[in-house]
């Protein structure tokens, strides 16, 4: 099964002359897109903050890795189980903590993420501890990762534009009013939390297959913060904006290799400036649309052409 995808991948890449470096960047981009789509549903559309998504990534990654390496499970099934297990844990955690308000919920997520990391470090027999978990087969080929990312985007898009998504948006705008019109806010928040954890677990499982070696520190608090940062940069309330944010955050450091020391510094400045001057993120509440982009370009060029005519 792994060979099947890898063969297709080799075929396509040699046909398109894509070298292994670019393949790696694309895989990383796809992983980030999946994780950030999960954050976008949770943070952008439900206005819940989770500092625990790196923890869910870790759960997905370790579940998939352990199933594949120790129990010889097919990697597709292992990935699904990893994502589902992360979602299951989120469901349980959310059942307990989503009744807490505001920052109290946030801090329990943070605590959860740190607990996961410490426990994965501690149970050396199961996870290899801080020495890491080696020997994962390389199943995240470029083609497979791209298929995953497209599928993830499609599912998230359908989810947001369904009744569930509209209910989530109403909770974001005003929870009290949403409850007044009969939306069970707690259940929908839990749904959204679970959804984002499934995505995080999925991204984690792909990450394990890409790195072929995972350590708990890969999934520390900084990873969660990076995910939130990217979501904010992309836009709170826009799926395409989040994808754009993920692209910026993954691709810009690759383009500006020489500035890699300043990467996090630039993130920090980007977040502060965006929050100060464009609080809804790059895309705000709008989704990318071809029509609007064409209209925008027309206005840009048409406007200047018109002005030119008038002068003449």
């Amino acid at each position, binding site marked *: 099964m792994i060979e099947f995808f890898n063969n297709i991948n080799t075929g396509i890449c040699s046909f398109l002359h894509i070298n292994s470096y670019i393949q790696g960047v694309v895989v990383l981009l796809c992983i980030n897109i999946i994780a950030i789509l999960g954050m976008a549903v949770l943070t952008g559309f439900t206005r819940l903050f989770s500092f625990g998504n790196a923890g869910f990534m870790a759960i997905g990654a370790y579940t998939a890795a352990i199933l594949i390496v120790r129990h010889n499970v097919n990697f597709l099934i292992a990935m699904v189980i990893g994502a589902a297990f992360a979602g299951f844990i989120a469901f349980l955690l959310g059942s307990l903590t989503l009744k807490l308000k505001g920052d*109290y919920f*946030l801090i329990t997520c943070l605590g959860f993420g740190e607990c996961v990391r410490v426990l994965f470090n501690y149970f050396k027999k199961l996870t290899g501890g801080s020495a890491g978990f080696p020997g994962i087969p390389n199943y995240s080929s470029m083609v497979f990762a791209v298929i995953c990312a497209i599928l993830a985007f499609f599912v998230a898009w359908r989810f947001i534009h369904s009744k569930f998504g509209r209910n989530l948006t109403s909770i974001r705008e005003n929870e009290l009013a949403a409850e007044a019109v009969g939306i069970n806010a707690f259940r929908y928040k839990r749904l959204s939390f679970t959804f984002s954890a499934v995505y995080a677990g999925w991204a984690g499982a792909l990450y394990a297959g890409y790195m072929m070696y995972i350590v708990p520190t890969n999934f520390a608090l900084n990873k969660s913060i990076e995910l939130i940062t990217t979501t904010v940069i992309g836009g709170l309330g826009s799926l395409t904006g989040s994808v754009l944010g993920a692209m910026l955050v993954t691709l810009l450091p690759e383009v500006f290799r020489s500035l890699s020391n300043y990467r996090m510094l630039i*993130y920090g400045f980007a977040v502060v400036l965006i929050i100060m001057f464009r609080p809804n993120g790059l895309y705000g509440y709008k989704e990318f649309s071809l029509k609007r982009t064409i209209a925008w370009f027309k206005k840009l060029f048409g406007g200047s052409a018109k002005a030119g005519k008038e002068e003449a």
Partner: protein
Amino acid sequence: MFLQQLITGISIGGIYALLATGYSLIYSLLDFSNWAHGEFAMLGAYVAIVFANMVGVPFLIAAVLGVCGAALISFFCEKVVYRHIRSTGAPNMFLMIGAMGMSTIFQQVANLVFTGQYRSFKFKLPVNTIEIAGAYLGVLDLISLVLTAVILVFLMYLINKTKFGLNVRAIACNAYAARVLGVRVDRSIASVFLLAGSLAGVAGILYGMKYNVFPTMGNIGLKAFVASVVGGLGSVPGAIVGSLLLGVLETFVSGYVSSSLRDFFSFALLIVLLLVKPSGLFGVDVQDKA
């Protein structure tokens, strides 16, 4: 052994308390968690290091300068960033995201300027121990304990007995009404940031004396944040109690159970406590405003 652990725990808890009260003060006024607060402690410690080790100023003066530096940085954050975000009428959550960004910036700047190297004060610190009732207590621990206690008592006095404290409590209660009644809200908020920053500076220097100074030491802010949540967001006495609790718990877990499980216990305590008491030990019940 027990007494020794207890004293160490309380002295670490005291450092947390200096930071946690800052979180609480700012939360009580502006309803947001200032994520950059731990970084003020880190920067204060670095200012003190620069003056003590590189310029060669006597240690006490360097420490005072460090505290002032932390206070000024905190003040500057409020003036430039938070006030601007508040004036746009954005939800409080955006303040928190902004603070997260500031925290990243400060940490990275420290990393670039001072590198990741661990630094310690060249000042000869009292490392000897004294024996009380069979327990060996570090002089440094005792100094930090006494200093913290004095500062916290002074802080409680400031908040409960002075005009400034009255203003702060009025704003915490209802900022709009306070403004109508003639409290200078922005000025009070700025002074609270100065106060919280200087407390953070003291915490950073004490921590730096006990361990080392390094760019990611602002992460103790996370622990202090946990402590202030345990005590109840926005409550200063709660923050102090929560910090002492957390400090003692951490020392005992490292001493008797396992030091690698220390963080697990503190975060598990946090989650369990919030499930039992959703707004912390001393917190006010958070309600949606209709």
